[in-house]
């Protein structure tokens, strides 16, 4: 087991003023990264999501919480699951949703990002959900929007994908209970390009997960990954042994420059999650994948569809988790200045 005291995230936890994600009252204003947030806040997100999961199971899947609010989906990069579940989450909270079609919008006519945002602000939007291929894009936007607007990061480059990480934590908690200390979680695959993996590792550490492992060839691991408080394996069989949770990552071919891998077939031979390899984990281990899955590249088809797979549950839970984050960010108590409090 890894000594958590030395984990880099610990020094960042807290309601520091420089953390632009939190308002003066320590409430979530923007959701840009899991890093630096407290165990309490992450647990609060999961508890709130649990309440919304009940709504999503009812025949009437809608509540009036965010009626009158406008959420703009700004996806500068392709997405189906994330964009659709953000849209559904907003709609089930009764918010109005604007799906800005970036490729057909003024951006393609040469308008700058800031001009696009200012136009959306002029349309009185309350929240921007942003996906961008540049790491730090959501932070950049959050630092520049009008004070009343919340920004949710729906994935920025290879940096962070916080709502994905939280829906993964929700999936783990639903299946394994809330004592993360006793869990062994293995993250397998292209960690180098994966914003999902980074956010997952932060979230797992903040929730005090007993043992977090990453399994990948050296070429697909970022330098200094050990400093994130994970145990590193280059051998799949060793790495997944006795795991409670196996999270497979997609091989991100579109982000690869240069020859990091000999071939997809060889990758599957070494790191593909086959039925045989799955038998090395705990018998009740769950198999997760943020999607989209590449059958026969990182995961065997029968495992993706098998009884231990919770891949489609992750999609369902994504709606509840996004509802939680949106309602927390837009439903905050008004910020009171110190003078008003006394």
């Amino acid at each position: 087991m890894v000594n958590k005291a030395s984990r880099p995230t610990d020094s960042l936890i807290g309601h520091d003023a420089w953390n632009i994600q939190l308002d003066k009252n320590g409430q979530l204003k923007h959701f840009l990264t899991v890093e630096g947030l407290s165990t309490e806040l992450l647990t609060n997100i999961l508890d709130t999501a649990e309440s919304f999961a009940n709504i999503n199971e009812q025949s009437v899947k809608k509540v009036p919480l965010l009626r009158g609010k406008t959420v703009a989906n700004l996806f500068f990069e392709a997405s189906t699951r994330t964009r659709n579940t953000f849209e559904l989450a907003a709609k089930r909270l009764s918010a109005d949703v604007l799906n800005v079609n970036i490729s057909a919008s003024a951006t393609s006519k040469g308008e700058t990002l800031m001009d696009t945002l200012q136009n959306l602000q002029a349309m009185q939007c309350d929240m921007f959900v942003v996906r961008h291929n540049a790491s730090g894009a959501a932070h950049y936007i959050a630092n520049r929007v009008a004070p009343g607007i919340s920004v949710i990061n729906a994935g920025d480059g290879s940096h962070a994908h916080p709502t994905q990480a939280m829906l993964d934590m929700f999936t783990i908690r639903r299946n394994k209970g809330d004592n993360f200390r006793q869990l062994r979680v293995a993250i397998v695959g292209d960690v180098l390009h994966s914003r999902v993996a980074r956010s997952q590792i932060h979230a797992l550490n903040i929730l005090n997960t007993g043992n977090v492992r990453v399994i990948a060839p050296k070429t697909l691991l970022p330098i200094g990954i050990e400093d994130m408080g994970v145990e590193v394996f280059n051998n799949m069989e060793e790495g997944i042994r006795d795991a409670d949770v196996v999270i497979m990552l997609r091989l991100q071919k579109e982000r690869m420059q240069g020859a990091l891998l000999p071939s997809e077939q060889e990758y599957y031979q070494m790191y593909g999650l086959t039925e045989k390899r799955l038998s090395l984990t705990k018998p009740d281990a769950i198999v997760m994948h943020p999607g989209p899955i590449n059958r026969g590249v990182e995961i065997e088809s029968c495992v993706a569809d098998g009884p231990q797979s919770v891949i489609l549950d992750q999609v369902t839970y994504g709606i509840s988790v996004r509802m939680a984050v949106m309602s927390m960010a837009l439903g905050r108590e008004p910020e009171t200045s110190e003078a008003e409090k006394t």
Partner: protein
Amino acid sequence: MEEIATPETLLDKLAEQLKTLLTERSIDQPLMVGIHTGGVWVANALHNKLSLEQPLSTLDISFYRDDFSRIGMNPQVKPSKLPSQIDDRHIILVDDVLHTGRTIRAAMNEIFDYGRPASITLVCLIERSGREIPIQADVVGQHLHLDDNQHIKLTGPEPLEFAVA
């Protein structure tokens, strides 16, 4: 302050009055709905006393509150359990204390999101002063006149007791 009867006495009284009212209105298959948390305890007791056939439904109105943007999220919201078909049903809505009327407004909004009931009958253990919107109960255990700074709360479920502050 006026003497407050015990919840048990009031429940008996409510059950009697409600039985009479249902007969008068020729309602034979009502759907009883308790509002979380105190209202569910009251509804549960009434449901037993009246031996209703339809299972008890529950509402958590947290997502329908009109002060949501002022008080923020309550993460511990319980699920609402209503049958998917409530069109043309006679609903008995049950709460512990009727005060401002805002909870009942929220509960009715939620009910109407599910469909168009034939009628809604409001039953409250205590009806206290301080209404802010025009809502009144059909069946009341006890009327109380309290000042704005006085509060009454039902604690439970075992035993059901009133806490006055």
